[in-house]
């Protein structure tokens, strides 16, 4: 392989070099610094005689005397089932001191797009055991459902809870719990050592590591490497799902750091920036990650994505959450106010959404009354929340009896339905029954989103009120 000592310019994460042979776009490059370090990079632009190289490990130490080798192929991820249980760095090198990885295949990390015609619509209910998700914003196998959060909120706890508890009840019933468990691919981008430890400890404590592959790019690792970490993770996920029949859950955190890296590269290339300085192609770039989720006709396995992002300035319209929301199939919204109230997990269910919910729930999947109960809970909670603003002004006494019921409903909804703790696992049945308990606070006639027959079947005619002995007696006599 030819070596060049033709670097003409080093600028931020970019290196320009002259060449006398054609070099392919996106292909891999190795740069050896005079001090003997080897850094890897990728061709960003290829012109006759000149290439722009994006260096993953940072350009520190590179000068005109560094030598450049063009590897003649695009970046590949060595994949094998043996990756399960392993911990790798952000560009796929093992860092757990384990044995060398003998790849089964080497796959291009820029995955090809799934032919929309070859997809199968995701509709298998995943029970996460979290009511705010299962009851109100159901996750299905093959969905991409990000967690929108802010720094200081327990999004990691939620992601871990989901990773721990997620099963597909239907299959668990048929084939045992093992069969319905997920293989977890964990892609960390720019998270702190502390956060990384939190994840690793949980994985080890619960034995989840055995069925996980961990990619770690930490806060002090090179930023440019963050652009390849999720691609490595997703390439591994696709391999396990579509060649080895695993159901894979991919947790990517923190997508905000990934986007910052994109912005940094864009700025170094002096590109015309898009909104708030992020590249104009960020939508396309993110879509190329998030769309690597789903089900494929005729394939056993699936890729489900649970990316985490912290919203800069807690602003949902910031380009990172905004573009993400435009690509993913809903979002789980974490909420500061709920967190301050001590609600665990602090999921803002009304700001959250699962777009694949409608086909994943109902008779045979979850429960026949699930959709109606969910709609009614949403409506009643929205009503109650609206009244909170008003009550601050006029006081409870000025409100009608019904309005007061809605206010109480909203409080109890947060305290009993959403707040379950990070260690509690609820079946979908339990979740829906709690829903009915709460809805029964409201007069029947108000429940106009629920089928009348279902109301007859499930509505608790007498809700026991703690201070009302009579009604409690009536209920027990019943």
């Amino acid at each position, binding site marked *: 392989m030819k070596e060049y000592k033709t670097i003409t310019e080093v600028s931020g994460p970019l290196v320009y070099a002259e060449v006398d042979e*054609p070099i*392919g*776009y*996106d*292909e891999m490059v190795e740069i050896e610094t005079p001090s003997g370090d080897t850094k890897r990079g990728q061709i960003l*632009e*290829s012109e*006759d005689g000149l290439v722009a190289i994006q260096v993953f490990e940072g350009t520190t130490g590179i000068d005109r005397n560094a030598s450049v080798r063009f590897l003649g*192929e*695009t970046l590949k991820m060595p994949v094998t089932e043996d990756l399960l249980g392993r911990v790798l760095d952000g560009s796929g090198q093992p860092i757990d001191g384990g044995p060398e990885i003998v790849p089964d295949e080497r796959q*291009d990390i820029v995955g*090809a*797009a799934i*032919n*929309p*015609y*070859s*997809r199968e*619509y995701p509709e298998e209910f995943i029970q996460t055991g979290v009511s705010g998700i299962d009851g109100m914003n159901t996750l299905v196998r093959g969905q991409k459902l990000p967690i929108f959060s802010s720094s200081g909120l327990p999004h990691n706890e939620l992601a871990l809870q989901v990773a721990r508890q997620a099963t597909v009840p239907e299959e668990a019933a048929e084939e045992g719990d093992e069969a319905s468990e997920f293989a977890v691919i964990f892609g960390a981008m720019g998270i702190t050592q502390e956060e990384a430890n939190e994840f690793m400890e949980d994985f080890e404590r619960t034995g989840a590591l055995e069925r996980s592959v961990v990619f770690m790019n930490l806060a002090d690792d090179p930023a440019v490497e963050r652009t390849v970490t999720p691609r490595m993770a997703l390439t591994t996920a696709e391999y396990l799902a579509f060649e080895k029949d695993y159901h894979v859950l991919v947790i990517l955190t923190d997508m905000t750091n990934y986007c910052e890296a994109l912005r940094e590269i864009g700025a170094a290339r002096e590109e*015309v*920036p*898009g909104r708030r300085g992020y590249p*104009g*192609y960020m939508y*396309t770039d993110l*879509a*190329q990650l998030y*769309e*690597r989720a*789903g089900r494929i*006709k005729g*394939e056993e396995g699936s890729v489900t994505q649970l990316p985490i992002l912290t919203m800069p300035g807690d602003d949902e*319209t910031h*380009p990172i959450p*905004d*573009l993400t*929301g*435009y*690509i993913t*199939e*809903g*979002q789980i919204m974490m909420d500061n106010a709920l967190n301050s109230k001590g609600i665990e997990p602090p999921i803002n269910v*009304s*700001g959250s*959404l699962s777009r*694949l919910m*409608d*086909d994943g729930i109902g008779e045979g999947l979850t429960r026949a009354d699930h959709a109606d109960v969910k*709609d009614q809970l*949403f409506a009643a909670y*929205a009503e109650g929340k609206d009244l909170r*603003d008003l009550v601050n*002004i*006029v006081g409870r006494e*000025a*409100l*009608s009896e019904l*309005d007061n019921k809605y206010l109480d409903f909203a409080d109890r909804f947060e305290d009993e339905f959403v707040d379950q703790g990070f260690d509690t696992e609820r079946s979908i049945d339990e979740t829906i029954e709690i829903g009915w308990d709460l809805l029964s606070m409201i007069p029947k*006639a108000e429940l*106009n989103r629920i089928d009348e027959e279902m109301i007859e079947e499930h509505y608790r005619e007498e809700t026991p009120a703690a201070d009302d002995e009579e009604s409690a007696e009536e209920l027990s006599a019943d």
Partner: protein
Amino acid sequence: MSQATQTETTEGTGRIDSVSGPVVTAVDLDARMNDVVYVGDEGLMGEVIEIEGDVTTIQVYEETSGLGPGEPVENTGEPLTVDLGPGMLDAIYDGVQRPLDVLESKMDSAFLDRGVDAPGIDLDEKWEFSPTVEAGDTVEPADIVGTVPETVTIEHKVMVPPDFEGGVVESTKEGNFTVTDPVVTLENGEEVTMRQEWPVRQKRPASNKRTPRTPLVSGQRVLDGLFPIAKGGTAAIPGPFGSGKTVTQHSLAKFADADIIIYVGCGERGNEMTEVIEDFPELEDPKNGNPLMARTSLIANTSNMPVAARESCVYTGITIAEYYRDMGYDVALMADSTSRWAEAMREISSRLEEMPGEEGYPAYLAARLAQFYERAGYFENVNGTEGSVSVIGAVSPPGGDFSEPVTQNTLRIVKTFWALDADLAERRHFPSINWDESYSLYRDQLDPWFKENVAEDWPERRQWAVDTLDEESELQEIVQLVGEDALPEDQRLVLEVARYLREGYLQQNAFNPTDMYCPPEETYAILRTIQVYNDEAFDALDAGVPIEDITDIDAAPRLNRIATQEDWESYVEDLREEIREQLRSLY
């Protein structure tokens, strides 16, 4: 150039000079603007988008990883065209009209590979052709010369290509032929086949554009009832993510009373296209009970598919739409989302280092949007038939802010504006179309149709609903300050009625098998019933009945259930009767 014609690619072979994402420059290439070229050793399809001296800039419709300088570029000498003929319905294409099912089998993979071509319509399949002209007849360009049963629903019309001279028919054939077999021969030697090609960026000719006067009935109450679109009209649905653009577009594709639906998934999700592919063959066309796919053509260039093909997918769609219009059909095209199309333009423009306009979009953004929507309309066709193309474009404004360039430039052109509202969506008020902001400029010209076909008093009823909702929003402002109980009784009653309008009339659940489609008669009946309640309730109030007793009657909440009744006619009748009885018994 279409994949069906294997034009010799010898016109001028150049070589690649540089590669940057989807944009490639070539030197020594003899090419005209918009020529289709094959790039690199793998022959990736591309289109010439700029020529400067010896340097030709090409947008490539496929992934360019690994492509390098020096590789050859071959020119086909023809612009990007689509194949037009039977077989476009019940098909799913990518942005340059390659059938995705054919790609799947040719690539033998669920993942899209590169450098694989496939013609837009199958060249080997035989179709049953019946001539509608005979020897001795004179035909002109665009005239219909025969028919083909394309699907159970649609009879495909075979037409003389617009660039033919036309003349006296020498002979016709009848029976089963491929799309390349001549079926009608003219005395001047011209041979008509069942297939034509048309350059996508050029609109197909028509004689005349007319004022549209028939609604495109959508089966969606808030649309038909308040903000109707005409057959041949244009509409935009802007809204932040998750507000219901796609669900509304899907509902329109399912239930709009067009003959043909062209659904363009432009830079959006793969699963949404899969949903259409899985649902439509099983759903019934409300007009005739046939499978919906029999009238539908899908174009799917999802967000992760090449950006350049995303730029072209709306043109592919509208050209197919115009072709069915030429046959005399009413066609409705949905594009989800036009913002992704605009972003593709922006991305390519910035790679060309063009001078950026507002928010980085190219200066020609407004012109391109206008040209596209201009291809909609109610037309008198060249062959004397009448047909229409309605265009409904979703817009995805960053941060949900409508002041951005794509929304603003679109609003300057379209005549129907369905503004989706994040706040309504968060309350699960669906479709989350904001009734204050939305409008339809077709309302007046469509009223005669509604009066004649649904109810004579359609416009008055609508006005009552609009007035009541307006009054509600004014009252809500006061309620926010003092609480509802502080209002006088008649105003509290208005709020109650408005709530039924919102919940029982405006809201419509796209996932409820009964509610998802609401014929205009039912739309009218629901509104009328709420008004019956209104009138009776005010009578009771005037007679001194306390407001609590009025709003408490158990018939009232059933106003919200009309939409989910299969037998809504008798339900409505009983309900009106009960409302009357219950309210009158109070005084």
